[in-house]
């Protein structure tokens, strides 16, 4: 087993006891909830007549079902309105802070935690959402849980789980122009497989990771689960501390910042830490990665040929054949030139300010291709406001993009933002599963935000590095 890693330190700090099942009872420092996976958990508590034990350590937002267009109440969709009301009732009764859309702080749960400074190093963070690993970018140990575990956390502020192994993923070298954090994580999943991380927590490190800002680190940790790893993290450093110092939690309280920083420093991975596995990737070799199939592990460099199922092991080959049939692609071709109908710039993976800035630089002075629906869904109301402050909304709308309100939107098609029929979508989100974006015949191509912008203006999957006069700095 690993020794001396951040994961080991945080695990020890939060261990309450060992349960009769052999699992560890682990204290949860921050519990995030949203409207889709929490109502049944509150229902279970009510059935047992149990109160929420630590309401101040739970924080709520609404993201999955919230409309990104007309948000007046009641919502146009009755089921969405009912879910919203249920959440409002639950948080009011329990005394849980709720960032609803009237606060200006609403957004995707994995965007708002970091921007408010409640996501901090060395914290255990859980949420009924598999992309909770996002918060690991700050050196938190963060993972998704099911609804019965949400009940556990509400009732006890703890979860029962077994300790996992730690795999260090070292990304060496510098990323080339036009290559982003998204490309790094898609490459990691491609190499290690969609189940390569089962039983592991991923520790991301190395020059390429250290050079990333917090948003890039979040994009990488966010998709840990797509590689099977329930949690992924980056050790905190000055980049982390600079972000935190400016958040609501610390901006006016330097004394608290210094006090907490002592703890943050204390839980970092030791120089002589031992891992269960180490994988090294040369970041300087990467190019923009796009998916050709229907799992996030089915990715290739934009200039690489789509792989041939005949050359794969039988299980992978079956999955690949079905995927290529669904996507209507052929082995040997590249994804460049694959026609798209929709461009979606959003999701907890890639809808933060730098993502929107980078995409806007590509879009500036260009127009969305004919017959392409393109829209931007900022990750939070704060991201939206900050982008508007810089005039990014103008750039997008002048090019023909729709500029929307914050939410999960077309990442999973639980609101009105959905693919129709067999539309193909260039998407900055995290999952290309069949049916994921709201239509069972829809086709999703995952890529980084600049690549989404390039696809939007050309109408096909395009190597952004080939576009003329684009600033990739």
């Amino acid at each position: 087993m690993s020794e001396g890693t951040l994961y080991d330190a945080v695990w020890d700090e939060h261990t309450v006891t060992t349960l009769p099942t052999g699992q560890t009872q682990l204290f949860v420092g921050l519990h995030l909830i949203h409207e889709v996976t929490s109502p049944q958990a509150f229902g279970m508590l009510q059935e047992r007549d149990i109160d929420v034990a630590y309401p101040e350590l739970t924080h709520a937002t609404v993201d999955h079902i919230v409309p990104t267009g007309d948000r007046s109440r009641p919502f146009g969709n009755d089921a969405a309105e009912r879910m919203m009301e249920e959440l409002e009732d639950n948080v009011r009764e329990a005394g849980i802070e709720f960032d609803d859309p009237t606060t200006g702080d609403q957004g995707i749960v994995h965007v708002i935690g970091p921007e408010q400074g409640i996501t901090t190093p060395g914290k255990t963070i859980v949420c009924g959402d598999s992309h909770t690993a996002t918060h690991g970018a700050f050196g938190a140990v963060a993972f998704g849980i099911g609804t019965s575990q949400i009940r556990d956390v509400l009732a006890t502020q703890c979860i029962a789980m077994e300790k996992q192994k730690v795999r260090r993923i070292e990304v060496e070298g510098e990323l080339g122009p036009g290559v982003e954090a998204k490309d790094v994580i898609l490459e990691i999943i491609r190499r290690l497989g969609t189940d390569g991380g089962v039983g592991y927590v991923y520790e991301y490190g190395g020059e390429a990771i250290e050079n990333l800002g917090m948003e890039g680190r979040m994009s990488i940790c966010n998709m840990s689960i797509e590689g099977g790893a329930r949690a992924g993290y980056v050790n905190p450093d000055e980049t982390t501390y600079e972000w935190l110092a400016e958040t609501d939690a610390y901006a006016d309280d330097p004394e608290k910042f210094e006090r907490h920083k002592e703890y943050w420093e204390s839980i970092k991975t030791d120089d002589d830490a031992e891992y269960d596995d180490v994988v090294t990737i040369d970041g300087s070799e990467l190019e923009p990665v796009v998916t050709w199939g229907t799992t996030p592990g089915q990715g290739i460099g934009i200039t690489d040929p789509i792989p041939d199922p005949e050359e794969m092991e039988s299980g992978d080959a079956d999955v690949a054949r079905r995927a290529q049939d669904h996507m209507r692609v052929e082995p040997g071709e590249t994804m460049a030139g694959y026609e798209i109908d929709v461009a979606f710039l959003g999701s907890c993976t890639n809808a933060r300010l730098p993502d929107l800035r980078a995409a806007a630089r590509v879009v500036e002075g260009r127009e969305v291709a004919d017959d392409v629906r393109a829209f931007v869904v900022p990750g939070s109301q704060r991201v939206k406001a900050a982008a508007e402050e810089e005039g990014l909304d103008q750039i997008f709308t002048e090019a023909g993009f729709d500029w929307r309100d914050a939410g999960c939107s077309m990442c999973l098609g639980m609101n009105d933002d959905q693919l129709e029929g067999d539309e193909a979508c260039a998407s900055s989100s995290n999952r290309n599963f069949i049916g994921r974006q709201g239509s069972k015949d829809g086709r999703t191509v995952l890529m980084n935000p600049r690549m989404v912008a390039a696809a939007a203006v050309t109408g096909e999957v395009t190597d952004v590095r080939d576009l003329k006069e684009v600033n990739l700095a």
Partner: protein
Amino acid sequence: MSDLADGPAETVEEVTGTGIPIRGNDIDTDQIIPARFMKVVTFDGLGEYAFFDQRFDDEDNEKDHPFNEDRYQSANVLVVNSNFGCGSSREHAPQALMRWGIDAIIGESFAEIFAGNCLALGIPTLTADHESINALQQWVDDHPDEDLHVDIVREVVEYDDTEMSANVDKAQHKALVEGVWDTTALMEANADATRDVAESLPYVESESLPRTETDD
């Protein structure tokens, strides 16, 4: 542990019944239950939406899928391949399978959150190698009316004259066999120790701690 009696505390030592195969690796939770059916505030009625988009076309006509076949309608043991249940953390996925009638799942491997969600519902997730699973899927195909016996205690699956060894994760084994899978009750019993940990953490403010009985 006062709540244990109210919770699902019975043991799950064995499951007996007929099988149903779902073939393919990387079957994600969006396939098991599409997100549009999750606009609900309870889990009731999710069973009819299990694998919905694989089972029905745009006009709601049935497509070829084991969950549609008459011969499998009373099946309660699902046999799957690798990385089953990957993707979203939605407990709606095992809830939909359970409400359709599934009591146990045997596969090559499972996504972690999915397996944890199954355990919370008392659904064992047993694993075996690729060849064993293929053989079992074929047998179930050929014998849809014959029972197989899933023995969680001995970690074997018995069918025909075959005794197939299958792995049950250690914590899952203990939880199901000893009936200690109501984790809420187990952990509630340690409220004082929980509070001690909370107090020891530098980031937990004292006003965030629950009131003790003496405060009341």
